[in-house]
């Protein structure tokens, strides 16, 4: 990727990767590479995820019991680990999502107060 391309990408905020993984797994179980690809694709390549950082995050989520792991064979018949959202993880995702909405809303209100004032 060129430097110009890199500049348009945004690095992830601390802790948001966990949330993105949980959201991705809401659609069904997936292996590590597929999760990374899905995050890239669904953010229109704006979010810059260093793919390696996915693994500490996955292990963290397993430790907390938010996702589970099972062996399986991928589409091209190779052995792979599939990560699946647990009930606990689903609950966590709901809580974190509403927290994130509040956070994003608050930041937006602070950064763009002029727009609100200008409104008729």
């Amino acid at each position, binding site marked *: 990727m060129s430097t110009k391309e890199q500049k348009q990408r945004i690095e992830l905020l601390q802790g948001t990767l966990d949330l993105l993984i949980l959201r991705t797994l809401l659609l069904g179980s997936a292996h*590590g590479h597929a999760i990374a690809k899905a995050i890239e694709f669904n953010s229109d390549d704006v979010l810059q995820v260093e793919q390696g950082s996915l*693994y500490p995050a996955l292990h963290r989520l397993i430790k907390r019991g938010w996702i589970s792991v099972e062996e399986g064979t991928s589409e091209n018949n*190779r052995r792979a680990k599939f990560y699946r959202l647990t009930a606990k993880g689903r609950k966590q995702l709901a809580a974190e999502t509403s927290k994130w909405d509040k956070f994003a809303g608050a930041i937006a209100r602070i950064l763009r107060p002029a727009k609100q004032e200008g409104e008729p």
Partner: protein
Amino acid sequence: MRRSKRMLEELDHDIREHIERETQGNIERGMTAEEARYAAMRKFGNVTRVKEETREVWNFIWLEQFLQDIRFGLRMLRKSPGFTAVAVLTLALGIGANTAIFSLIDAVMLRSLPVENPSQLVLLKWVARNAPNTHGYMSWGDCPTNMQRGAQNPSGCSFSEPMFQEITQANVFSGTAAFANSGRLNLTGNGPATVINGQLFPGTSSARWVSNRPLAGCLTHLMTHLQRLPSPF
């Protein structure tokens, strides 16, 4: 615990697999094999660091589980106060009884002096009106010695050798013994040499009333006690 170990053991394989997939995808998008592999590696980031960070996730899991177990135990105990009371009482009584019995054994068997009649043991001490003229005087341990010229009632615990012989022959005591500080000794043997403080303890006359327990070890025990004995005068 076992789960974390298995997860970490398979981490290498998972990472290899991941890079392999990315490479394959890059080739399908028209890169040469070499380019594709290089791009995949770059996209993945520092493999060693990723492994380290993943390992750190599981680092203190045993401690966390241990704390969880403790919290669970405490919760369970709180839930059944009757059982808790019985358990605590049993432990308290057990520990208390053990302590009491050990104190008794300690006093009667372990701490009693290794001599035949510990209660008859005395330490001789001298008191004088004026400080004596001596050619060298050796005091020991924590025996209070006051031999300063012009001191009120100078006193001490050390006697000259002829004086000791006199006391021994006076037959007032069933046995007598003397000891003297030997100064610093060099103890060598297994390991580095160390400096120790020795005591001279003349054998024949003293060994009679020191009971037939093994002397090594007992003697130091005896010495520390002798220094605390009351003086008969």
